[in-house]
């Protein structure tokens, strides 16, 4: 696998060199071959596409011959992305872009396709009966796919890259139905989202590992029964006639639910057990939203009643930037803005406001809502971080505002420093080869979610800059075992590699 990286670097270099060395007078053309990334054998009948970045540009295509070779001619000069496809194979990564100089010839582009992995199995209930129309997801550190079970409870994932997968099945969705009232002594059965083989929680799940081109069958997921409970409450302060709803979000398991608010009341039924944040945010037909301080509830085996969410109109926060030490040159701050955003609590309730920083360091952020809000910066040099926050006279730790009301006249003083720490590293798989994966950096606190996220490069590299000093956890999304803890000091440049195992 390390060979893969060097091949690409080399390929890129060759492409450029060949393209640059062409005589004038010939039409631009390109040839090469498509090969199996595991065996190196040529792949006939693969489709090759050269796609212009702008929609106006021309696209080109070819099909490989029995020797796996293709040729494209009469190409308009420009930069193209190149793709190969063939049933039963996947592009293991994005191929380097191809630059066609006027009248150039580019030879021997080698495009690799990896044979697909396949996982098949069944979803069963607690009595061993097949479950129809269950939604099954296959999750790896860099892949997520969904399928539904058929009447035999069977599912089939195709087109999977090699890797370790965690499979999760969800029973068919009518999960906002109230519990059935039964008078015959029987009990309604209900199942929660379940990880393979029969785990309620991700950390108890077993992985299914497939190699490139491998097929694994007979994976049985046995759904776990959960109690049917109601989580209900009321929302006050809504503008008359406003239609909106309440979101429930369990960060640990990424479970989400929505309940409409009717007559100022909401009720969720059948939430899987977990720790939920219940939040309300209205739409803004006249440019003004209302939000409530989210409620936290533990859903277990009994009903949760009488939650109250008090909606408050969004407001504006004005303030001033100050610098700890020497500020960066003014030209680097022309597009600078203060951003006040709620950490995501689910799909529909993310809220965000930006306030441009003026030449005098003042800013105004409109559309701020109550609840926990992260204060960050946009358009500043990469090494800048928020050192401290003061709202009126109150210090706000960890660059977070915790607002339960409109702060009115209290100004937000944001102290910035150019001595932000940084952490970089490489994601490697079990075999020690670099791997693309979504890397998440989060403060080492119980309730923290991903503060920064990035996709590591082809070479597995990632880099986070402009970090406040403190303790952090670094992990690959979807892989708790990869978590590394580290402490950063002001201005420190740390290195931490990650292992994309389980």
């Amino acid at each position, binding site marked *: 696998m390390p060979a893969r990286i060097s091949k690409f670097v080399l390929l890129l270099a060759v492409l450029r060199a060949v393209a640059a060395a062409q005589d004038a007078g010939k039409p631009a053309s390109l040839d090469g071959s498509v090969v199996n990334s595991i065996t190196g054998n040529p792949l006939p009948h693969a489709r090759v596409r050269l796609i212009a970045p702008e929609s106006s540009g021309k696209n080109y295509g070819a099909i490989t011959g029995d020797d796996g070779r293709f040729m494209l001619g009469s190409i308009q000069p420009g930069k193209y992305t190149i793709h190969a496809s063939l049933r039963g194979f996947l592009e293991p990564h994005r191929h380097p872009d191809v630059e066609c100089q006027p009248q150039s010839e580019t030879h021997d582009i080698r495009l690799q396709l990896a044979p697909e992995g396949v996982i098949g199995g069944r979803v069963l209930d607690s009595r061993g009966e097949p479950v129809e129309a269950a939604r099954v997801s296959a999750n790896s550190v860099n*892949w997520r796919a969904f399928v539904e079970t058929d*009447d035999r409870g069977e599912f089939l994932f195709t087109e999977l890259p090699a890797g370790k997968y965690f499979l999760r099945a969800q029973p068919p969705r009518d999960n*906002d139905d*109230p519990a*059935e*009232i039964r008078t*015959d002594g029987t009990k309604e059965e209900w199942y929660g989202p379940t990880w393979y083989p029969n785990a309620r929680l991700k950390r108890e799940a077993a992985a299914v590992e497939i190699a490139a081109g491998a097929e694994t069958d007979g994976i049985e997921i046995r759904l776990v029964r959960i109690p049917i409970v109601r989580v209900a409450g009321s929302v006050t302060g809504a*503008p008359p006639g406003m239609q909106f709803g309440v979101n429930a979000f369990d960060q640990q398991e990424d479970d989400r639910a929505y309940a409409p608010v009717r*007559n100022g009341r909401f009720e969720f039924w059948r939430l899987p057990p977990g720790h939920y944040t219940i939040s309300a945010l209205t739409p803004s037909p006249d440019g003004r939203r209302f939000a409530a301080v989210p409620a936290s509830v533990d859903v277990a085996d*009994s009903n949760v009643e009488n939650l109250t969410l008090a909606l408050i109109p969004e407001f504006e926060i004005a303030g001033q930037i100050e610098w700890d030490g020497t500020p960066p040159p003014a030209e680097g701050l022309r597009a600078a803005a203060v951003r006040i955003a709620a950490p995501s609590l689910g799909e529909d309730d993310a809220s965000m406001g930006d306030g441009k920083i003026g030449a005098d360091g003042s800013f105004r952020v409109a559309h701020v809502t109550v609840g926990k809000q992260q204060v960050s910066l946009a358009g500043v040099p990469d090494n800048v971080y928020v050192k401290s926050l003061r709202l009126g006279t109150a210090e706000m730790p960890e660059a977070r505002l915790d607002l339960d009301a409109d702060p009115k006249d209290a100004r937000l003083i944001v102290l910035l420093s150019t001595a932000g720490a940084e952490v970089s590293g490489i994601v490697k798989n079990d075999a020690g080869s670099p791997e693309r994966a979504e890397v998440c950096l989060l403060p080492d606190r119980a309730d923290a979610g991903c503060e920064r996220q990035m996709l590591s490069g082809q070479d597995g590299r990632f880099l986070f800059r402009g970090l406040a000093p403190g303790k952090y956890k670094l992990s690959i999304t979807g892989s708790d075992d990869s978590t590394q803890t580290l402490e950063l000091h002001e201005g420190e440049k740390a290195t931490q590699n990650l292992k994309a195992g389980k």
Partner: protein
Amino acid sequence: MIRTAALLGSMLLISSAVAQEPSAIAGQVMDSATGKPLAQVDVRLTARQSDGSRTVIYGALSDSEGHFSIAPIPAGSYQLEPRRRGYFFVPSAKNGPPSFTVNIKADEPLRDFRIEMTPAAILSGRVLDESGEPAGMRQARVLLDVTSPKDYVLLFSIDGAGLWRGAMLNGRGEYRISVPPGKYFLSTGASPSDEIRSDGTLETVPYARTFYPSTAEGRAAAAVEAHAGEETAGLDIRLVRNRTYSIRGTVAGAGPNAPVVVHIVGPDTFIDASAKDGAFFATHLVPGRYTINAEGGEGNAKLRSPTLELEIHEDTANIALMLTVPIRLSGTVSGAPGAGVRLGPPREIDDSFAFSAPVSADGAFEFARVQPDRYRLTVKPVPEDSYIKSVELNGGAVTERTTATVYPRNAAAPSQAVPLDLSAVAGDAKLKIVIAKGARLSGTVERGTEKVTDGLGFVQLFHEHAKPGSEGELWADVETDGSYVVRGIPPGRYHVLATHTLEQSGDDSAFPKMVADSEVIEFHEGERVTKDLKVASADARKNK
């Protein structure tokens, strides 16, 4: 314990109804194919609210003899939704219209209610492309991309039940659908697929919606028989290409050498064709309904043509578009101080654009540049209880009051809207909008002898001359204190009907009669009427 808590919660909700009219239902579930009792069926009875949400669900599990029983259950009208894996509930049409509704009366508990469950039939096969390979777009994916929905197969029942359901193809181009026995058409709507042309260019040539076995023509489709408890396999659908068409036409009204673009929007189609020397041409249009308009010039001098809507089922020529000069639309609004006027797309659900103009203290508003086209005109906010009485365009009445007045309860800023066609207007347009005070109807609603306080009641008004069976134009929910208010009633004579979720019947044919039997009240402008209503009950309906 959990169950008890949940049960108590729900019991509280309907406790008044239980105390009022307890009844019961018991019976047996049978397998329609074998005629034998069927165990393990979850017999569900659901009361729904007017918006379709489920409020209360009663359930029972059939035992080894197929017997089930729910007692007590409040008298009322319920949706029957029995469930068991591998079976469908297909209400029989033998005894009247098919119905999923069960009416349970207070004085007559249902003792021998018989439910027949039909074993599912399985239809399976593959979708193949022209070369006989399993179909399915293979797309280059980026990391963390969520798998996009694959191609699918749809089933249409021949027995008049319409679209039954669809199934996704798996990664091997296979499908498997579980359906009630019967005759079906199968069709698939495949994604467009890239086709590589011999000249090396790439064209998107869509596959047609293809019917089993391999035709784009619905009348040439072959029916497929699905048998109870059996699988019919090998139903392969071979995709055919869509026939595509070209259109050509002219755009008048642009200066020489002015850039003109024709926007062509249709099924899976967004084409911007540029018009050279006043002529445009576009190809590869799949059959269907299109909207076409032209845009020319730049910046403030930009002109547009009115939007043309047409069906394209053949090569079409001679489409004439005319760039028009924007008009000035001015007018007055009376009866709604502080209102604003808005022009949006003609269809209510389309919010792709909106122009707003404030209304001055003397009621005047103006849009300086409006393209002559079709719009929807909204006045917002209007005072409580008001409605759009009339709209005049350059002195002529625009339209009858066609749009429904939707009043969310306690709405602080209700709006009123009417369609407005400016496509034939040249020069300036003057509008005269009159907002007038409608009537208000309020009171309380009783079901039986008690006020409706469970939030399941609502009041509907039907104009005396409205088409039978049409939706109630005005409505209000009954509040949890038993009161209701219907606002902004245009003057006229209306049927006033109070209904309750538990009294609703799945039998739609009874509804026009219920409306016709309800009391007619005449409302005058600005009038406030108080009227206490009684829920039209199922029994009363029957006796008439």
